[in-house]
């Protein structure tokens, strides 16, 4: 019985894969080949590829032209689905993927664990308040993901275009006009309308470029192995270890980073506190009356990169900001000493005159 219980939990956790569109670099040159990566799993690790027939829409938007991507442009490598394409003219690009809905049946405990694991606390709370924790679930889910990247130096307005997905994030500013330390507001749309009071998570992963910093590995380098459903792998600095899930263990969550909630206008604001690849993610999960289902969820993510300087020429700066800060500190120190010195001589002369 215990084994069955664990198996249900593990299967539920493995089924809850978040989808992300990622690039090795979000600053690209015009008219060059690029590979867009579609991750299904965690932000760090893709667990499985996505079948082409699941993709309802794959679009690349630039200079107000929306290009539908054909199936032949997709390839696969390990568990990552790859889209090869060539950038066009300079501009701020948007790429999006929207998938067909699928359904999944889960036992009550597995469903509750999945809600906690993915940070869908509103539904978990609802189930607690309505004595529904023991109810099993049949959930219809679909995923709709976007990424914004900068090609060349020219900033275009495509970042604000609504792709028309069932759920999607639309930034209120071009992320590539922002720097580390700024804040970004995003509007969350559900069927084209602002979605209020929705939990949204914003987090980042440091870019592999030299100027960026690494992520907190014990928090972020976690992943799952589909090779053996009983194992649950976490990597740490000393390597990696696997362990059987234990009843007493607190389930870890994929909902890390800044926990935000959209306001009445469907807007959530994140502080872009560090260099890296940032992502917003949300799962809108509601009860449904649809025949054969108990719940319906729409998943959305948005990825982009934040650096201190967004100019592609300055993209390799290393600790320049800190050098600047150090110089300012030295200048401040020397200036302060100079000021105290000047004041000292002035007061000293005044005192000497008074004594004379």
């Amino acid at each position, binding site marked *: 019985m215990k084994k069955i219980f664990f198996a249900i939990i593990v299967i539920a956790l493995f089924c809850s894969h978040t989808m992300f569109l990622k690039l090795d670099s979000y600053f690209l040159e015009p008219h060059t080949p690029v590979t867009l990566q579609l991750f299904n799993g965690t932000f760090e690790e893709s667990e499985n590829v996505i079948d082409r027939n699941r993709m309802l829409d794959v679009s690349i938007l630039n200079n107000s032209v929306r290009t539908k991507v054909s199936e032949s442009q997709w390839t696969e490598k390990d568990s990552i689905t790859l889209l090869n394409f060539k950038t066009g003219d300079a501009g701020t690009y948007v790429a999006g993927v929207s998938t067909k809905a699928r359904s999944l049946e889960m036992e009550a405990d597995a469903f509750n664990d999945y809600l906690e694991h993915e940070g869908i606390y509103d539904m978990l709370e609802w189930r607690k308040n309505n004595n529904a924790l023991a109810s099993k679930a049949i959930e219809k889910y679909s995923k709709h993901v976007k990424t914004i990247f900068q090609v060349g130096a020219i900033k275009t307005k495509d970042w604000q275009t609504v792709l028309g997905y069932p759920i999607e994030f639309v930034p209120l500013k071009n992320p590539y006009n922002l720097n580390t330390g700024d804040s970004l507001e995003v509007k969350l749309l559900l069927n084209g309308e602002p979605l209020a009071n929705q939990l949204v998570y914003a987090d980042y992963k*440091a870019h592999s470029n030299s100027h960026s910093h690494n992520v907190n590995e014990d928090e972020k380098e976690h992943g799952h192995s589909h090779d053996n459903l009983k194992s649950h792998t976490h990597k740490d600095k000393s390597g990696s270890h696997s362990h059987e899930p234990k009843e007493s263990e607190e389930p870890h969550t994929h909902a890390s980073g800044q926990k935000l909630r959209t306001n009445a206008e469907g807007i959530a604001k994140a502080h872009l506190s560090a260099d890296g690849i940032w992502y917003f993610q949300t799962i809108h999960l509601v009860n449904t009356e649809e025949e054969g289902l108990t719940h319906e969820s729409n998943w959305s993510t948005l990825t982009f990169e934040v650096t201190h300087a967004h100019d592609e020429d300055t993209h390799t700066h290393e600790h320049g900001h800190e050098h600047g*800060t150090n110089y300012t500190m030295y200048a401040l120190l020397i200036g302060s000493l100079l000021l105290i010195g000047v004041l*000292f*001589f002035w007061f000293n002369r005044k005192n000497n005159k008074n004594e004379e």
Partner: protein
Amino acid sequence: MRSKKYVLSTLLLLFPLLLAAHGVSASDQELLNNGGLLSYIYVGAKHMITGYDHLLFLAGVIFYLKGFKDIVRFITVFTIGHSITLIGATYLGIKANEHLVDAVIALSVLYKGFENLGGFEKYIKVKSPNLLLMVLIFGLIHGFGLSTRLQSFDVGTSQFLSKIVCFNIGVELGQVLALIPIVFIISFWKSKRSYKAFYKAANLYLIIAGMGLFLYQLYGYFNGH
């Protein structure tokens, strides 16, 4: 008259130098991500040593005190004050706009310089408030500022309390390291004939620096810098 002009022009030249703030750096974040608990001690100490607003306030307090016992008493009260808010606010996730918190900290620097120069008696015609109480209150505010800074790092959730405590330990170590030369210079100068001029110059500087930092933080708050 000439010397007054000289002082004024120097102040104007140096004013922009007051407008630098000690912020969160990517290298510190990197260190915290990879360095374990010791890195929190290091970053805490570094923040205190480079956190000139905290040090200026402490220097102002040292100026007022007589003898080593007095220094230990006041610094202990300041430490208790900032430890309460640093650990408490960070643990509970309480934070405020960092510009506003830093603006109040800047006012504490201005306050100390003003008090040391006898401003309360001279200009407001009232007795200075109890310094020990004020040091405790300002300690709480400085701790809140340190907490706001710590919360702007991505600390994560594992070993959360240990990380906060280590950062606080670092702050205390940094404070001690920074106080050694400050106490030494002030104590050394006290026996000199020119101490009166040094006292006035340093405390006038505290007023100028406090005002400069205050205006800078307000500018940052209203302009989203």
